[in-house]
């Protein structure tokens, strides 16, 4: 059982990876990007394509895919989100949902319905494991994934608090107009934030491809995982995302123990329970659900 708990915690690292971009974008731009999962799957396909076509190992492929994702994030903000955010809070939901449909079906058109995986291209890493005391075997990939999540979250935190650009992003998220008065370019800050978010999405996509299989329509479940982890961990800093991811993964692990189809049910159930408890204790609206990491960091 302790073995499963450790596996669950490590899986939580993946959920934290995919969730942090979503919650970062929400905290800065107040937009929940419904194409989040589809973009992660897009990154996974890009790596797969580079690996299968040009024999570029996925970890090297990231050097190409992550800058590409950053560019996509910048374009996404400039051409889609910025414009639709002007039309109110509802339009970005519709725009990004439409985008998700376009991405999913383009991927299907391009790559077909087959499930793919990056596992064949990362050598022994996909199955190699370390033995921990108490004869517990942990996959090397799972540990790398978890470590990446910790480094990424810590790095983001440092970036937001310690750098000039990070501070301007936080200022924009607090109040774009006032930030503009003191010389912060809100458009630039938002575009940078979107680029950063998409880089994390690219990383998440890479790990999705390495640890499991994916297909063109795998984006929707990833979006739900990201959202659930972000909401569960919502209380406070970016580290909350890590906690959220771990809780989600443990609930899924537990669900799988109870019933063969219980993996996903367990995850959704714990999400709703957390939501319910928070709603009934706060008694307020839910503005604080996806709390702002920048605020608590200050």
């Amino acid at each position, binding site marked *: 059982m302790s073995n499963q708990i450790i596996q669950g915690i490590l899986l939580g690292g993946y959920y934290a990876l995919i969730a942090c971009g979503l919650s970062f974008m929400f905290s800065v731009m107040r937009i929940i990007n419904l194409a989040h999962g589809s973009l992660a799957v897009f990154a996974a396909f890009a790596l797969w394509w580079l690996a299968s076509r040009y024999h570029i190992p996925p970890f090297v492929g990231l050097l190409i895919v992550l800058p590409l994702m950053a560019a996509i994030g910048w374009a996404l903000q400039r051409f889609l989100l910025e414009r639709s955010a002007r039309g109110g809070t509802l339009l970005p939901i519709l725009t990004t949902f439409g985008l998700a449909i376009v991405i999913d079906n383009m991927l299907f058109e391009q790559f077909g319905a087959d499930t793919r995986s990056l596992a064949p291209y990362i050598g022994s890493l996909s199955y190699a494991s370390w033995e921990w005391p108490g004869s517990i075997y942990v996959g090397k990939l799972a540990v790398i994934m978890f470590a990446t999540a910790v480094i990424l979250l810590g790095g983001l935190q440092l970036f937001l608090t310690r750098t000039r650009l990070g501070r301007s992003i936080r200022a924009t998220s607090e109040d774009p107009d006032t930030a503009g008065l003191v010389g912060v370019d809100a458009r630039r800050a938002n575009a940078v934030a979107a680029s950063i978010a998409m880089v994390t999405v690219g990383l998440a996509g890479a790990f999705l491809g390495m640890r499991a299989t994916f297909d063109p329509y795998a984006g929707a479940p990833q979006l739900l995982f990201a959202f659930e982890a972000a909401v569960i961990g919502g209380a406070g800093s970016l580290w909350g995302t890590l906690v959220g991811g771990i809780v989600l993964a443990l609930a899924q692990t537990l669900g799988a123990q109870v019933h063969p189809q219980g993996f996903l*049910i367990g995850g959704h159930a714990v999400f709703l329970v957390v939501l319910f408890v928070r709603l009934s204790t706060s008694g307020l609206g839910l503005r604080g659900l996806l709390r702002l990491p920048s605020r608590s960091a200050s």
Partner: protein
Amino acid sequence: MSAVSSSPVIERGTMTSRIAAIAVAVIIALLAIAPQFLSAGAVDRMTALFIYVILAAMWNALAGFGGLVSVGQQVFFGLGAYFTIRLADAGLNPFASLFVSAIVVGIVSWPLSFFMLRLRNGEFAIGMWVIAALTHLLVNLDRLVQGETGTSLISLNVYDAGTRRATIYWLALASMTALLAVLFGLLRGSTGAAIRAIRDNEDAAASVGVRVTGTKRLLFVLAAFGIGVAGALWLATSITFQPKTYFNVQWTAYMIFMVLVGGIGTFEGAILGALVFFLIETWFGGTGVWYLVGLGATAVLFSLFLPRGLWGTIEERFGLRFLPVGYRVRLPENAPSDDGTAPSPV
């Protein structure tokens, strides 16, 4: 009458709207007798169109009037079909099951609303999606459904194909008409004023005493019920029930497309959007993936460049209102306007 001519006129019914009302009655009457003249395939397609209109109108009621964008409305579509299967399996007449099932869906949505309506914007949108995903998984656990294999509404087979087709057609037409009428009545009454106040500014509406949550709940339950009817009718036309098909997010994508293209927040827009979607599906549905890419791209383009949709734009440009749900202030022009029987162009 002539006393008002020099001051602004507040109008609701106009000549256009009166003609439109008569036209609507004629169209419904024609549709009711249409199965006599249409081929079997055409009757089926028309039934699908009615279901699309229901879906669009209900999603529009929720998003366009209630300000609640949900990407999980497929949960009610799937449940409408699932409860029909369950009720028919318990021995209820299959046609009766369709509507009892929708009522059950409406009842289920009531407690759900207490929970979900406290979420805001994007949180509500994806929260509903989570509900849909969870419900899908739970329905799969039901032995009767046999997981993704699915099951069928077998008890419908006692009716011969012709009777079945015509009955479902009429039921779909009647459901569509009734739901649109309910929505129209709701929007014209005092609730309608509250709904539009919420649509325009929720906080301001609350501050002048509009019961925001109660009104939203009404729309939520109405939309759940309506989409439940649509799901049950869809099951009746296609007979087979595969959870994956019914709980597919594609249904919500269709609803969003129809409403965005037609005109979000306008009563006529949803109907127009359903018609546009129906025609596009008829012409391009065979192209498979590109058709879906096109739907998604069109939705993106409309939300970016024409957020008011086709009808919203027409309404704005020409001041047309076929089925007016609000009031308008018409400022007097050079030509004195009388009691509205001969409205001057605005």
